[in-house]
C-alpha cells in the first residue's frame, strides 16, 4: 500500500515563501492499494495536483472519501479534472449531516451554484455516484476496505481506516478529543467522564495497530486553551492517541495556516523533546506536501 500527501494545511490554502517546505494546500491524501486501486481521502485544494497526475492514467476510477464537509476538505472537488472527462468514474462517500439533513450527495451541488462556479453538475461528463455512510460501515474498494468512524468536530466527521493485505492506514480528518463540559465539582462530571472514556476507547479501537496514523495536530498545547471547542487536536493529543492505539507511525497534519515552516519545525522539535521515543512508541513525523509513504 502507498500513501501520498497532496495537502497538509488546515483551514485555508496558504502558498508563499513561508510554507514552501511543508506546502500550502489543504487536505488531500491519495492511498493506493496493492492492486493500485485509488482511494482519495478528502478533496481540499491538494486534490488539484493529484488530478493533474491522474490525467496520465485515464480512465480514472476513484473512490473519494470525505471526512467532513468544511471547505478545506472539499474545496478542490470541482477542480478535480477527471470529473469532466467521459469514461471516468468517481464514487464519493461521506457522512450524513443531521443539522441540514443532507447526505454527501450535496457536497458538489452546494459548491456549484451558478454565482459561485460556472459549471453545473449535469455538465460533468464522468460517471459520479454518491454514498452516504453510516458510522462503522465498511466499504470495499477492489479488495481493500474503508471503514468510517465518528470522531469529534463541529460538523459530523468520519475518520477512515483503509486496509489491504494486512496493512492499514487511519486518517482522522479533523478531530478534537472529546472533553468534559462540566467542572470537577459539578454533579454530572463523573458520568460525563465515563461516557468520554467509552467513546475514546472506541476511537482507539478504530485506529488500533495501524501502520500509519495521519492525525489532526493543529495546535500546540499552549495554543489549545484558546482554541478549545474548535474541533482540532494538538501534537500532544495525537501522540497520546497514537501510543494508546499502538500505531507504527504517526504523521502529524492539518498545520495551522499562520505557521511558517520554521515555526512548525521549532514547535515540532519542542514537542519531541518532551516525548522522547520509548520502546513500542510510534515513529513521529510532520506531514509534508508531496510526502510518500510505502507500507
Amino acid at each position, binding site marked *: 500500500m502507498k500513501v501520498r500527501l497532496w495537502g497538509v494545511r488546515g483551514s485555508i490554502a496558504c502558498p508563499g515563501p513561508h510554507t514552501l517546505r511543508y506546502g500550502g494546500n489543504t487536505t488531500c491524501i491519495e492511498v493506493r492499494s496493492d492492486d493500485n486501486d485509488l482511494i482519495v481521502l478528502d478533496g481540499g485544494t491538494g486534490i488539484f495536483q493529484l488530478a493533474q497526475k491522474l490525467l496520465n492514467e485515464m480512465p480514472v476510477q476513484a473512490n473519494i472519501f470525505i471526512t467532513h464537509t468544511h471547505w478545506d476538505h472539499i474545496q478542490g472537488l470541482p477542480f478535480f479534472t477527471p470529473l469532466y472527462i467521459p469514461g471516468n468514474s468517481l464514487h464519493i462517500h461521506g*457522512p*450524513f449531516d*443531521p*443539522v441540514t439533513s443532507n447526505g454527501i450527495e450535496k457536497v458538489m451541488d452546494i459548491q456549484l451554484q451558478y454565482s459561485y462556479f460556472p459549471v453545473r453538475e449535469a455538465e460533468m461528463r464522468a460517471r459520479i455516484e454518491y454514498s*452516504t455512510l*453510516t*458510522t*462503522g460501515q465498511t466499504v470495499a474498494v477492489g479488495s481493500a476496505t474503508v471503514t468510517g468512524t*465518528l470522531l*469529534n*468536530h*463541529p*460538523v*459530523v466527521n468520519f475518520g477512515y481506516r483503509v486496509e489491504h493485505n494486512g496493512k492499514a492506514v487511519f486518517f482522522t480528518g479533523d478531530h478534537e478529543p*472529546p472533553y468534559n*463540559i*462540566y467542572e470537577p465539582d*459539578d454533579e*454530572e462530571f463523573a*458520568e*460525563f467522564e465515563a*461516557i*468520554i472514556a*467509552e*467513546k475514546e476507547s*472506541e476511537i482507539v479501537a478504530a485506529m488500533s495497530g495501524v501502520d500509519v496514523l495521519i492525525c489532526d495536530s493543529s495546535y500546540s498545547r499552549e495554543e489549545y486553551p484558546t482554541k478549545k*471547542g474548535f*474541533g482540532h487536536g494538538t501534537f500532544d493529543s495525537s501522540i497520546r492517541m497514537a501510543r494508546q492505539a499502538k500505531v507504527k507511525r504517526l504523521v502529524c497534519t492539518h498545520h495551522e495556516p499562520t505557521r511558517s515552516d520554521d515555526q512548525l519545525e521549532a514547535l515540532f522539535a519542542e514537542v519531541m523533546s518532551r516525548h522522547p521515543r520509548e520502546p513500542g512508541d510510534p515513529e513521529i513525523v510532520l506531514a509534508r506536501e508531496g510526502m510518500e509513504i510505502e507500507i
Partner: protein
Amino acid sequence: MASLSPEINARLELAVDRMPAFPKSVQKILELSRNINCAPKELIMVIEKDPVMTIKILKVLNSVYYSLPSKITSVSRAVVYIGINTVKNLALSFAAVGMLPSRNVAGFDIDRYLQHSLVTAGIARQLAQKHGNGQVDPMDCYVAGLLHDFGKVVFAQFMAAEFQEVLQKSSDRPLHEIESESIGVNHAVVGAMLIQRWNFPETLVECVRDHHENPVMDNPMSECLFLADTIAKRAAEVEGLPPVVYDSNWRGKHIVLSVDRAIASLGDLTAFSAEAQMFKQASRT
C-alpha cells in the same frame, strides 16, 4: 402493542418533526447561542429540561446514520458522540419550529405537563442513584421520566379535537383509560410507539409503554419510572390535586421498595417541584 388505524398512524408519523418546543427552552437556546463562547453545560441544561428538544436530539442520534454501538439515551451521550456544536445547531433548528402554546386548542395544560415530567425525571434519576444498585443508568432513568408522558403532547398538538373530548371526560376516571376508549390507544402506547419507531432501546420503549401498570417486565428502569411517576403524583397531591391511588403492597424485583419507603428515602419532595417550577416560571418572562 395496540395497532392504530392507518389514518392515525399517518398523523402521528410527522408529529415529532413538526412539534414545537417549550417556550422557555426556545428563548434560552436563542439567547445562549448568540454568544459564541456560551458554556456548553448551560445549553445542555436547557435541552435536558425540554421533552421535545430531548426526544428530537435522541431521535437523530438513534437514526440509521449513527447506528452506534451503544444506544443513545442521554443528551450528555449525544454531546460526546456528535459533538456540542452539532447538538447546539440541532437545538437551534428545533427552536426555529416555534413554541408550544401554553393553552392549546385541546385545552391541555402544557405547564402542568412539563412540571410533572420534570419532577418525575428528577425523582427517577435519584431513585436510580440511591436504589439502582448499578443496574440502571441514572441519566437513562431521567430521560425515561422526562419522556414518559410524551404521548399526551402529541395528542394535544395533532389530535386536538379528540383529545379535548378525552380531557372533558377525565375528571373522575384515569386519563389513559378514556384515551383507550375514545382514541383507541392511550398516551403511554403512543409515546412508546414513537420511540420504538426511532430505534430507541427496547428497555425505554417498554417502560414508557407500561408506566400505568405495575411493572411486571424484568426491567429495572420500568420499576424506577413507575415509582417516580407515582411519587411525582403524590408530590403534586401536596399541592392540592386529587388523591393518588397506588398499590401499597407493590415491590420491585430490582428496586425492592414500596412506594412509601421510596418516598421516605427521597427526603423533601418539594425540592423536585421547586426546581421544575423555576424552569416553568421563567418561561413566562
